């Protein structure tokens, strides 16, 4: 028998709507109403300034280690904005703007980063999972949630976030594979920020793109300019619409950049150059989106200033409220809570033991 070619799709698309010089492709421009555009801007700005504030709080020792998200706001916010509140969002740990968009309060972020488990609480109106730190593990949960949503005959979808590093984990491949086999309403959003701590994207895969991994699983894949909020939104809206209509899953690779440290325990000077960071700073999604809004006549310089003041106030109030809230937290016995629906007897005994140990210390606070 001769060797015969097998026809498989060989290309995927790259989508850019608003390039780094602010040039807009009007044919591709998603039609978003004014109010939505301004809310997106406000969320992006809030997330950026809050991220900066978190960094300074961490440097002052007021909160612990956290993963900054500056530079990646368009990639995750643009995607999350295509969801309706009834849809599900499954974050990794670098989706601050998306979490805020979905209703996470700044106080909850502050409490969590200040080392209080209370900050992990998800209120009932949010269909979101808490952050997942083991890289890639959450991808499977999104596939499972999507599965359940379809099984229950809803038209909702599940969207999951993860990084470029995560695409090396088996869980990523298994998640895409299950979603493809069962045609699940899932949207896999990869924030390719070029680095997994010190390991460059090229060390994760020999493939030219991450988006092309979709081809192997027979699902839709697209690569977008992840610093272009409009492009990310457009790609996500298309994927969400398709998933809702029963058209199956999509992998979206958002090409973006982590402008700050990996976490506050990291020193990027060990592995990347200032020139590289600078070149990406010029592609910063925030001023780019602001220029778009300005060109549309939706945002003046005055408007930006007002928005800056507003988010600064909101952040300040949140920090004060969180610090106030913290005074009432810290009950040591909380560490026994929320593990089981019903606390088993052994654990109740251990709880009593801690109470006694604390009492034996004269009730004084021994730990700060």
């Amino acid at each position, binding site marked *: 028998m001769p060797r015969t070619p097998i026809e498989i799709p060989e290309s995927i698309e790259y989508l850019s709507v608003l390039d780094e010089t602010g040039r807009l492709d009007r044919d591709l421009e998603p039609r978003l109403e004014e109010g939505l555009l301004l809310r997106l801007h406000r969320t992006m700005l809030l997330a950026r300034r809050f991220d900066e504030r978190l960094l300074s709080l961490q440097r002052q020792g007021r909160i612990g280690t956290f993963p900054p998200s500056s530079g990646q706001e368009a990639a995750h916010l643009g995607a999350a904005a295509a969801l309706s509140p009834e849809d599900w969002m499954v974050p990794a740990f670098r989706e601050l703007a998306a979490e805020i968009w979905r209703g996470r309060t700044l106080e909850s972020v502050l409490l969590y980063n200040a080392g209080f488990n209370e900050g992990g609480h998800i209120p009932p109106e949010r269909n979101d999972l808490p952050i997942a730190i083991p*890289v890639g593990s959450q991808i499977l949960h999104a596939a499972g949630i999507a599965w359940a949503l379809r099984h229950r005959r809803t038209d909702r979808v599940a969207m999951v976030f993860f990084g470029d*590093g995560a695409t090396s984990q088996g869980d990523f491949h298994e998640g895409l594979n299950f979603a493809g086999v069962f045609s699940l309403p899932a949207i896999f959003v990869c924030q390719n920020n070029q680095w997994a701590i010190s390991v460059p994207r090229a060390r*994760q895969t020999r493939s030219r793109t991450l988006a092309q991994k979709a081809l192997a699983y027979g699902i839709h894949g697209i690569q977008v300019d992840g610093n272009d909020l409009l492009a990310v939104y457009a790609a996500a809206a298309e994927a969400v619409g398709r998933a809702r209509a029963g058209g199956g899953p999509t992998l979206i690779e958002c090409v973006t950049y982590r402008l700050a440290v990996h976490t506050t325990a990291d020193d990027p000077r060990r592995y990347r150059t200032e020139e590289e960071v600078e070149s990406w700073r010029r592609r910063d999604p925030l001023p780019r989106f602001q220029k778009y809004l300005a060109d549309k006549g939706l945002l003046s310089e005055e408007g930006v200033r007002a928005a800056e003041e507003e988010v600064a106030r909101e952040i300040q109030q949140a920090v004060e409220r969180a610090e106030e809230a913290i005074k009432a937290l810290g009950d040591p016995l909380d560490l026994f809570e929320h593990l089981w629906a019903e606390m088993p007897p052994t654990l109740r005994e251990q709880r009593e033991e*801690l109470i006694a140990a604390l009492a034996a210390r004269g009730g004084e606070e021994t730990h700060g």
Partner: protein
Amino acid sequence: MAKLNLVQALNLALRQEMERDDRVIVLGEDVGRDGGVFRVTEGLIERFGEERVVDTPLAESAIVGTAIGMAVAGLRPVCEIQFDGFTYYGMHQIEAHATRLRWRSRGRFHVPLVVRAPYGGGVRALEHHSESREALWAHLPGLKTVIPSGPRNARALLLSAIRDPDPVLFFEPKALYRAFREEVPEEEETLPLGRSRIAREGGDLTLVAYGAMLRPTLEAAEELSRQRGAEAEVIDLLTISPLDDTLLVASARKTGRVAVVHEAPRSFGPGAEIVARLVEKAFYHLEAPVARVTGYDVIIPLFRREAYYLPDVPRIVQAARRLLEAP
């Protein structure tokens, strides 16, 4: 002798063993250019090159699984898993293959593999970065689980682990990475795996500890001596599995009063095995129920409550007093 902290001592062990044995390969996430997130592999890539110090893609199962293959084929891989919370992706490979290939092939193959990972709490870290789950690993036949308690023994044990013909899980107490320095001789020094040591001699009671818990346990022993003139013997396990019970059984026979200290959750923890050994081998010498001063059976809380979870000097002293006061 140089005074080194734990990070430097581990680095010394890796460097010297890589110099001595060119089969040794270090692989893991961020171990090369970054020198490891705790800097344990600092400088190795400059010295030994990218073929022997490998920044891998982000996949713990692949790191461990390929290392098993390397080990079978004549190399001496030392994997770094960034935190013990991410070792589980590699656990399947260890349980299913690393611990079994010698057995399955009736001795034809063996797996001289080291998996290093930081473990334990006390550094204000994120979720999955503070757990103490050595019991999960200690339960696997065919795997050695080693936990040093200071720079000098860490260096000596890591050398032995790399030279060991069988797989070794090497848990590094991250709270100790930069906590203190010790004299560490430049010339080679090894310690046998599977052997505990007496960290402090005493005849009134026995305290068993390991890893980051050794220091508070020694402090508690000093406090007991000061407060009530009671001298505690402190046993430092160094290897959790296979457990060497000779010293702790001998000590229990001498003192009759024993407490085990670990930060792992209590139920089914290493302390449970130690109590069982004492019941089997020193039952008639025990004068009081064996005490366990441990983490609680919960997920270790985020860092603001972490100190309530971790055993500390007052909790150890309290338990010891109760032992001493038992009729």
